[in-house]
């Protein structure tokens, strides 16, 4: 009997507490798998932001520090500068990284900090009950944009990878999706590339995942994937925006 697919050592045994169908789980898994495949489980420190994503520390099977909301890139900087031999990554939501933590993220990129940042963009603040994020789409209704986000009041969705991809310190920048098995494989390749970029000492790496939040979108998990494809894909630039030369 051969096993074609089983749970990676890169994840702990603790069941995810995420809502049914929340794609945070897929992203956790592929990060865990890549860490295992690159033999990094004993050599890595993860840093969580605050948000649903903040529980990653329970699930991904490496040393972890729980940062404050938005500050994971600074915490990761502290760890990496103290231990340049470690691989250090952050796992942050879009509210966490693009709203309150924007300065820390952009400055880490500008400094060319040799860390990897994973940004899970579900177009809202999941944890706190579905408020507007900087990534919320125009017209999207959330708990704090009850009439739909209006650019006149709240501006335009912010695509962080696009924003930072021209900074010389940013070595690898990609936006991936987890809507189909094929795209999950692509996403996993991006995760691997991001870690490799760090291991090669080339600078800052960022992978943005487009992800679902069925609970706060008020859709079923399967509908959510569809909604993401229909509404988020056109707004965020998908692909490898920057690769190390």
């Amino acid at each position, binding site marked *: 009997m051969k096993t074609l697919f089983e749970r990676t050592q890169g994840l702990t045994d603790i069941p995810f507490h995420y809502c049914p169908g929340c794609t945070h789980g897929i992203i956790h898994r592929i990060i865990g798998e890549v860490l295992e495949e690159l033999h990094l489980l004993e050599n890595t*420190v993860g840093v969580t932001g605050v948000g649903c994503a903040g529980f990653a520390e329970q699930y991904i099977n490496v040393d972890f*520090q729980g940062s404050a909301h938005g500050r994971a890139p600074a915490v990761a900087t502290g760890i990496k500068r103290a231990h340049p031999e470690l691989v250090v990554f952050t796992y942050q939501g879009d509210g966490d990284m693009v709203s309150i933590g924007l300065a820390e993220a952009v400055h880490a990129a500008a400094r060319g900090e040799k860390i990897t940042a994973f940004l899970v963009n579900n177009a809202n603040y999941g944890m706190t009950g579905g408020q507007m994020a900087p990534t919320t789409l125009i017209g999207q209704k959330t708990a704090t944009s009850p009439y739909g986000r209006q650019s006149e009041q709240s501006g335009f969705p912010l695509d962080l990878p696009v924003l930072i991809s021209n900074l010389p310190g940013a070595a690898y920048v990609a936006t991936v999706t987890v809507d189909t098995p094929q795209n999950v494989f692509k996403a996993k390749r991006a995760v691997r590339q991001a870690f490799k970029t760090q291991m090669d000492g080339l600078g800052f790496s960022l992978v943005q995942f487009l992800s679902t939040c069925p609970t706060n979108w008020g859709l079923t998990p399967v509908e959510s994937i569809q909604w993401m494809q229909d509404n988020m894909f056109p707004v965020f630039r998908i692909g490898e925006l920057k690769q190390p030369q």
Partner: protein
Amino acid sequence: METMFMKGNEAVAEGALQAGCRLYFGYPITPSTEIIEYMAKHLPARGGTFVQSESEVAAIYMVFGAAGSGERVMTASSGLGISLMQEGLSYMAANELPAVLVNIMRTGPGLGGLGPMQGDYFQATKGGGHGDYSLLVLAPASVQEMADLTMTAFDLADEYRNPVLILADAALGQMMEPVTFGAREPKRYDKPWATTGAKGRKRNLVTSYNLQNEVGEQKSIYLEEKYRFIQERLQWAETYQTEDAEYVLVAYGTSARIAKGVVNALRENGVKAGLVRPITLWPFPSKVFTPLNERVKGYLVVEMSAGQMIEDVRLSTEGKVPVAFYRRQGGIVPQHDEILEEFAHAFSVGGILA
């Protein structure tokens, strides 16, 4: 052993280096700037890493990360920057992360001015961040102590797994005095909890989130007990001429230096005066007051603020002895003669004014 003529700020930085501080993260601000500049210049050559952070918020979280992975690390700022660190300090205390921070106090509130002040006492000792926690707070009163207490701070931080704050007014940061560095060896502490990669051990988590209230309460009680333990053990103060004192001045930092001169002047005039100079501001050295409360006729607290430490003095004197107060603000240091005058007035002691 070498004696140097140094600014207090430089003494803090050199002290940190001699205590084995390996990383410095910080953001410039007058009147603390010599610390970051000294570190930028000397830390790399002495095997450490210096990073100028984009802000004080980033600085404290870089400190958090480095402390969490087991290294000796420091940051310094002045009131405004320390205010921005309050969330981070609460996080550090909650995660029991050892690190040293320095507040070279300028005047506040708001943008304020650059003169020396002691208006951040409450922020430092009561916890300006959210939740129940304490920083250990040390108050040097000379350039020598700026160096010595910084070294001590690193040991205390590791000993008690808690951030330690050096609280000094700008006069102490900016003034130069001779300072001697001995061949003090930094103590080494095991940090099995640090996140250094889970090689050959269970993985380590540095987190402060409690999903369940019961767990949260256990954590709170654990922290409370730790703090009570520290309060028992760590009450430091300099007492000067208090053995037979009828009146005791209470002051820390630069105020205490001036108060000492006043004590000398009072003694010359036949008044039995003494000085209590708290060195640990948290824990506040209440025990020092216990015997004094029984025989002293009055305390005179001298501060460079509207009156902050005086609350702790009042709590320590339990209403048994009158507590008078003298202060200057806005960057102005209390003057010898003024304090004498206030003393004469508060305690109706005549014949001591020139």
